[in-house]
């Protein structure tokens, strides 16, 4: 038996061939077998899971026709999503033992739909990183090669879907933290339009960039999860009130007649040849489906990275000020309050977090604000304008998700080289536009992702293009060794 999709499991739950408990048993057993190698979980929520599985059984019995397709199906949550009473650490030592007294909106919507929570997944500390090596609780193995990283920061959420433990999970994407690990682990990963999914209950990294999104095995599953969690939330003032398009309605519409743009700058010299070949092959598949492909230009791609590495650290330096050891989390007690603050934060935060807090504090500090933060905000406008101009010429952008395939753990110890991982994903965060990564090939047995980007609120269009590509290929059906072993 191979890992099944949400769609398949929803059918199986309704024809009586399985039950939520059976699915949860299997998921937990799979996690137990693979955690030694993968370290994808920071907490397994067995008790919560069984409670939800039983409630889901009830829902399915009572209302088999109206129950959500997610009802009774196991899933996992990146450990930056707050769940009432469940340990939530954001991959940081400073939050060890923290149990939020509330549940994030997106998660609550899944719970209301009957989702069954298997656990909280490992991630880079406070979602800062591109390899999940910055977790205070150890790195995550890539199910395709456990000596390699799964990407990041949502590495645990990507790995658990790639390993076949659960059919879907939630992650968060600030500069590529869903799409890049999806690419590196051979699954679908989607970052919706900024404002589409409530950030309430998502532990903030960079507020103007953060967005929650799903990891799934197929684009159709992605659409199912997205429609469940998307939509206005009065608790998040930046969540958009306009109606959400149903991506399922246009999913099968195909790409015939669509104009797709390939940004010249996204296939630059930093792109590994194997990745380039795989992505170019994907372009030909889309052409064969009837799309028109043309080269476009996003000239500020190079400076977008600099913009990102000012704005994200600046916002994070402020967002992380609340970790002071007063109301929650761990505290290092010292005779003076100032020393208590210094040591609590000095000991509680890891290197990458400290680096970004330092960088952001510097960029906002007196005398540097105009040169760094204000200038970055202006260039951010330019980045958005360039996307808008391109979207006058084409319906969507297609490009690699990551310039490289999964790299060996410990191979990128220089911060800047790690930051380069996000060079083709972070512009979408700066512009607040949707982007998806869908499997598009392999290089030496390691997955490659194709990224599709569209204008704001064209989330359905992104999924439509990705689905057309997916249906024409079978890369998404290829399984990591851990998923094959699930049989």
């Amino acid at each position: 038996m191979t890992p099944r999709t949400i769609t398949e499991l929803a059918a199986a739950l309704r024809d009586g061939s399985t039950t939520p408990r059976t699915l949860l048993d299997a998921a937990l057993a799979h996690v137990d077998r693979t955690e030694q190698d993968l370290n994808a979980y920071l907490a397994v929520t067995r008790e919560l899971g069984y409670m939800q599985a039983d409630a889901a059984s009830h829902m399915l019995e009572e209302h088999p026709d109206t129950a959500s397709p997610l009802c009774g199906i196991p899933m996992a949550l990146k450990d930056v999503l707050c769940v009432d009473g469940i340990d939530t650490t954001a991959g940081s030592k400073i939050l060890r033992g923290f149990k939020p007294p509330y549940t994030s909106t997106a998660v609550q919507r899944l719970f209301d739909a009957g989702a069954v929570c298997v656990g909280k997944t490992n991630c880079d500390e406070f979602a800062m990183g591109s390899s999940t090596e910055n977790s205070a609780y150890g790195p995550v193995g890539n199910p395709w090669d456990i000596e390699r990283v799964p990407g990041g920061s949502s590495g645990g959420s990507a790995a658990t879907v790639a390993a076949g433990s659960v059919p879907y999970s939630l992650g968060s994407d600030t500069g590529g933290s869903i799409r890049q690990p999806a690419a590196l682990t051979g699954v679908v990963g989607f970052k919706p339009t900024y404002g589409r999914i409530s950030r309430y209950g998502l532990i903030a990294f960079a507020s103007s960039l953060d967005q929650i999104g799903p990891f799934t095995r197929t684009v159709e599953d992605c659409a199912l999860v997205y429609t469940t969690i998307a939509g206005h939330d009065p608790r998040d003032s930046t969540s958009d009130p306009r109606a959400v398009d149903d991506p399922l309605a246009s999913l099968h519409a195909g790409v015939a007649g669509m104009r797709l743009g390939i940004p010249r700058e996204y296939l630059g010299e930093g792109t590994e040849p194997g990745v380039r070949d795989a992505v170019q092959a994907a372009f030909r598949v889309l052409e064969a489906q009837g799309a028109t492909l043309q080269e476009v230009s996003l000239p500020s791609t190079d400076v977008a990275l600099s913009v990102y590495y000012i704005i994200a650290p600046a916002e994070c330096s402020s967002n992380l000020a609340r970790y002071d050891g007063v109301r929650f989390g761990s505290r290092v007690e010292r005779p003076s309050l100032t020393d208590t603050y210094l040591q609590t934060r000095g000991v509680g935060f890891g290197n990458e977090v400290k680096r970004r807090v330092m960088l952001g504090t510097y960029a906002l500090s007196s005398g540097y604000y105009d040169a760094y933060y204000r200038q970055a905000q202006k260039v951010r406008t330019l980045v958005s304008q360039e996307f808008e101009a391109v979207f006058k010429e084409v319906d969507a952008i297609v490009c690699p998700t990551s310039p490289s395939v999964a790299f060996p753990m410990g191979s990128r110890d220089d911060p800047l080289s790690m930051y380069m991982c996000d060079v083709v994903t972070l512009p979408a965060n700066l512009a607040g536009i949707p982007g998806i990564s869908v499997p598009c090939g392999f290089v030496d047995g390691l997955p490659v992702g194709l990224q599709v980007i569209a204008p704001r609120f064209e989330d359905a269009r992104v999924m439509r293009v990705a689905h057309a590509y997916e249906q024409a290929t079978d890369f998404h059906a290829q399984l990591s060794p851990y998923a094959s072993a699930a049989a």
Partner: protein
Amino acid sequence: MTETATIAAALDRYEVVIGLEVHAQLLTRSKMFCPCPADYTSAAPNANTCPVCLGLPGVLPTINQEAVDFTVRTALALHCDIPPFTKFDRKNYFYPDLPKGYQISQYDLPLSVSGHLEFPVGGDAVRCGITRVHLEEDTGTMHHAGDVLQSATSSLIDLNRCGVPLMEIVGEPDLRTPEAAREYLVRLRQILTYIGVNDGNLEKGSFRCDANISLRPRGAQELGVKVEVKNMNSFRAVQRALESEIERQTEVLDAGGTLVQETRGWVEAQGRTISQRSKEQAHDYRYFPEPDLPPLRLDAAFVERVRATLPELPEARAHRFQQQYGLTAYDAAVLTDTRDEADTYEALVAARVPAKLAANWQSGDVAALANEHHVPLQHSGLGIDGLASLLRLVDAGTINGPTAKELLAELYVSGGNPEGLVRDRGLAQVSDTAELSALVDAAITANPAAAADFRAGKQRALGQLMRAVKEATGGKADMPLVNRLLRERLLEQ
């Protein structure tokens, strides 16, 4: 020299430049950025909190509409402009009473700018510019175990107050004396309470003031070194702290010294300010736009809607009282001191109590009773309606002044219907000329010596005769009439 003399001498040589910053809590029902109740005094410590005001990981703020309305209302009352675009910013600093490590405030684009406040000081009209009125959130409160801050062993944090809407009103450095500074605050507080946005309690800290003060030699163009003074929790403290600062700065300058830019705290018990923080230690707040809150666009229609909710302001109302009710400037000022006072007055007049009579009683006996019982008229047993019927009885001559006074004192506490009581107890004034004339004759007959004395020119002797008539009527006699009848009778013989 006395303090006043010292200040006067200092003011001769130096020009004092004072600017005030006021923080006023808004009387909303819920907090600024979360729906917790804003009443932080009546709940147990930390009871009025939620994940948002606790600054827990993952939470987001939402803007209280009423707080925006109240701030705009204040700005309009202070003649400010309301720019079409405004936003919130984060002010970053660490302190245990600030859970998020930043305060959501407004930096470069506040809700309102360029207003002013006009008021008289010692007969002169003073106009103080208002730089801006902006909206932010209050912090929590800290209690220090141990007696004083410096020797405390631990600090206790209560976050009930954290997130209460707070308005910052920044005044221009247009004030030139401590007295003017005090008067500015009195007026500002009056306006805020009038328009119903703040309860004006300096002691509890719902209305707080910081002052910036500098001295420069008369005629100098450059401003002197600015000192910020904090910890003043009464109008008197503000005036005393500023006077003390003028003395201190004058001494330094007179001795040829230079002042340092610093923050000083007023220590009430010692009657002086002490240094808290120098410029070198100044904060770097790293303001930046709050990414969790979309900006506000306040169009003209919105501003006009808020303007329509503005009540008549105290100055205008006092002016109208003079015109409409023929009151003196003093009476008009007293009766418009608070909105309740003025509303009460107009309710009495509307209830057919003559304007002058209402003014005299309200600012006299009624004010004294309110003071004595710590209960305003509208919450007393008598109430506004009761007072109106009592005063109508006075106006109609049904009861005399002393009777009205006694009834007022009784009814203020116990309540009751004045007309009914006057009837039941037979308190109505005796003003029948025939009945009183008989009693006057009887009094003269019974007190021949007094009558003789009066006829001999001793005016005082009339008192004894008047008392006799009063007693004979059980105190209900129309005494002015008795007086007239007695004089007529005594002089005709």
